[in-house]
């Protein structure tokens, strides 16, 4: 569709990029101690591992504390509106398959207002990497329940007695709707996250990475996650039925790649078949 323009930093083949080279230098607005700092670090390290030139990468997000991440990276970025990161990224990737497109959301952005796009992005299976920083609440709007909040979390400001509703299972729903790669990482363990993020980016099709990223301001209990998480005891499966069984009993604390599918990604062929519009206009001739 469009000719890839510009030169690549790595074209010379010699310039090695370090993690810090992917930082924009803009100071994050996050609270000190927020899990999202770790996610930012993991991302820069992963990009360095992959030695992708910053201009080859686009990071697309919605609105939320977590969705602020693109501005802190030196890649192209789009901080869009709440809940619509996935379709924005879909439009970009489908028309520019040469770009590496990473989509960043929070649990509210991704699973509440953005739930429908999540379903259909999984199903459509465009070659995107979707990282969701889950802190089981809305941080940006100062502490309301999100779809992943525990039903008895009583501090959500619109749900004084707790939501009373079973939390949303992102990985189960993601699998049910067709995600092609499913993994979980801990936002506070950048080194642990890097190899997983790398695989997610390299895996063709839609990759979902669930990131436990504590909100220390509205739910300090999440600091415990660091201690509670564990490596998933089994290897990643590529059998959806087996993955379903495992994920349905998953307690949200298993880290690692949990599912690796092999569905064909959705990517329209962008090779022109005609070289003039006149061919199309013929149909109108009387």
């Amino acid at each position, binding site marked *: 569709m469009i000719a890839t323009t*510009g030169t690549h930093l790595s074209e010379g083949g010699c310039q090695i990029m370090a993690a810090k080279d992917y930082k924009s230098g803009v100071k994050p607005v996050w609270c000190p101690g927020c899990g999202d700092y770790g996610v930012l670090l993991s991302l820069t390290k992963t990009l360095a591992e992959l030695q992708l030139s910053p201009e080859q990468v686009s990071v697309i997000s919605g609105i939320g504390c977590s969705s602020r991440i693109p501005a802190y990276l030196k890649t192209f970025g789009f901080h869009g*509106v709440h809940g619509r990161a996935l379709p924005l990224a*879909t439009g970009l990737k489908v028309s520019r398959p040469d*770009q590496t497109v990473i989509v960043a959301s929070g649990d509210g952005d991704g699973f509440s207002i953005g739930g429908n796009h999540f379903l259909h992005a999984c199903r459509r299976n465009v070659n995107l990497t979707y990282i969701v920083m889950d802190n089981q609440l809305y941080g940006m709007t100062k502490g309301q329940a999100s779809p992943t909040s525990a039903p008895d979390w009583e501090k959500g400001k619109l749900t004084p007695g707790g939501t009373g509703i079973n939390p949303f299972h992102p990985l189960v729903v993601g699998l049910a709707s067709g995600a092609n790669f499913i993994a979980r990482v801990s936002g506070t363990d950048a080194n642990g996250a890097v190899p997983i993020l790398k695989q997610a980016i390299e895996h063709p099709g839609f990759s979902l990475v669930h990131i436990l990223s504590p909100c220390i301001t509205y739910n300090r209990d999440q600091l415990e996650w660091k201690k509670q998480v564990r490596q998933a005891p089994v290897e990643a499966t590529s059998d959806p039925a087996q993955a379903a069984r495992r994920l349905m009993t998953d307690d949200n604390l298993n880290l690692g790649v949990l599912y690796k599918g092999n569905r064909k990604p959705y990517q329209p062929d962008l090779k022109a078949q005609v070289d003039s519009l006149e061919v*199309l206009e013929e149909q109108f001739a009387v």
Partner: protein
Amino acid sequence: MTVPSISITMTGSGGSGVMTAGNLLLEAAGRAGWFGMMTRSAGPQIRGGEAAAMLRLSSEPVLAHQDRYDILLGIDWKNADRFAAEIPLDADSLIVGPGEAPAIFAEAAGQQFQLDLPKIAKSVSGGRPNMVALGVAAAIVGLPEEAVAQVIDKALGRKGADAVSAGMESVRAGMEAAKALPSFNSLAVNTEAETTSQEARWNISGNEACGLGAVRGGVRFVAAYPITPATEVLEWLAPALPKLGGALVQAEDELASVTQIIGGSFGGTPSLTATSGPGLALMMESIGLAVASETPIVVIDVMRGGPSTGIPTKSEQSDLNIALYGLHGDAPHLVLAPLTIGDCVFTTQWSVVLAEKLQTAAIVLSDQALGQTRAIIPRQQDVGMVAEREVPATLDEDYQRYANTESGISPMSIPGQAGGQYCADGLAHTPTGLPSSKADDHHLQMDKRLHKLTNYEFSSHWAEIEGSDDAEVAVLTWGSSYGAASEAVAAMQAEGKKVRLIAMRLLSPAQPEKLADSLQGISKVLVVEQSHSGQFYRYLRAQYDIDAQVRSMAVPGPLAIRPSDVLKTLSEWS
């Protein structure tokens, strides 16, 4: 001068194939060197209910339907009375069909002839009543058999020689039967047409024309969610784009389709979607994102009756308000409207070029009357405008995506351009794109986004201006109401009265100087539009100082504004 023409409606109940007959008649007229248009109307059934094919044929291009029909031809009369409001007949009108026509028609028409089309069809082996109707209609209006034969051949050729000959037999039987009827063959058949029509004339709907305009303007990515009456824009683009190296993605909803095209455009590809009122409403939040992040997009709104789900299959110009004002915050953007079916090509193309040039959202207000009407029109030459986005000449450390330039247009880098990285944002931001809640930053960007539009010279395309230089009365209209208004103005001029017509193609940004110029010498302005609340009239009041008496003629849908309605109002006033 008013255009000599013949208006004919064919009706039939579900399964009668009346629409096919109408389409073939239109096409045959085209083959014969004529012009014309056909609008379809159907009952409430999802599909297969009664329908009416309303045609106007002429030796010159026509822009609107007439006020009345010369001929009403019924394959049958079941539920045909449902269309009475849309098919005005008078003492000069002729009704043809089996048995008694519904009273509401019979009482209005001057003549009625009984002709049992189904019975005639039975007399032909493999005969079909709608093909008989085609023959009757062709004969009444004076189309040569040869033109009909060509279109039958094209339409039924795939079904084999038997189908073609049964079709032509039916047509001939209809033509034969029509000999007993008065003829309306007042139009000269263009004898050269058979050789030149292929190139010189198009058979196209407004929706297809929008699709063509889009790709001419450079659109190569479309995301869409179907909705009546916009779907055909998308249905035309779906197979066309892959041929051009582009793509159409069917999205899960309108929230997705509009954000997908923002993504496509961010990636450097001119991108577009099409929808109708309810879908446009859902897109407003993200259209605001396109405006604030200065990412060009084009949204075609093929308007239908409103509010809410309204009347999906009928036309109204009542989405003007939402298109102009429906964004939260101060979000200057482009609003344009095609004036005719043919103009759907140019206006869409121009909108793409403007959106890309001005890095903003363009809303194109087409409507059901343009979109779903099929017409024989002169071939629309490609004006050659293609999207040209300003990209940074050089990229260095200091690149500012939202730099405050003199034109207000800031060169936009594209993913892949080394050194051009930036983060697009819908938050108020600094010239580099960094979120900022400072008053100065906010004001700078708001000024910039406004001025890039108001400073731009939109040229004479902003409106079509017709009629007398020395007129004192003007009709001011927009979009599809142009057709009826133009015909009314021509009729008045033909009577020796001086009138001017100004039909706006560019609604926003407002062009106060251009309008003032075009109103030189005018003391009375009739504002014509198809809405209930006079949306266009109110918009003019809000944005323009008009130094004349202004009167509003606002007529809501679902019936089209007719030339005679305009003429009457105008004559009474001036």
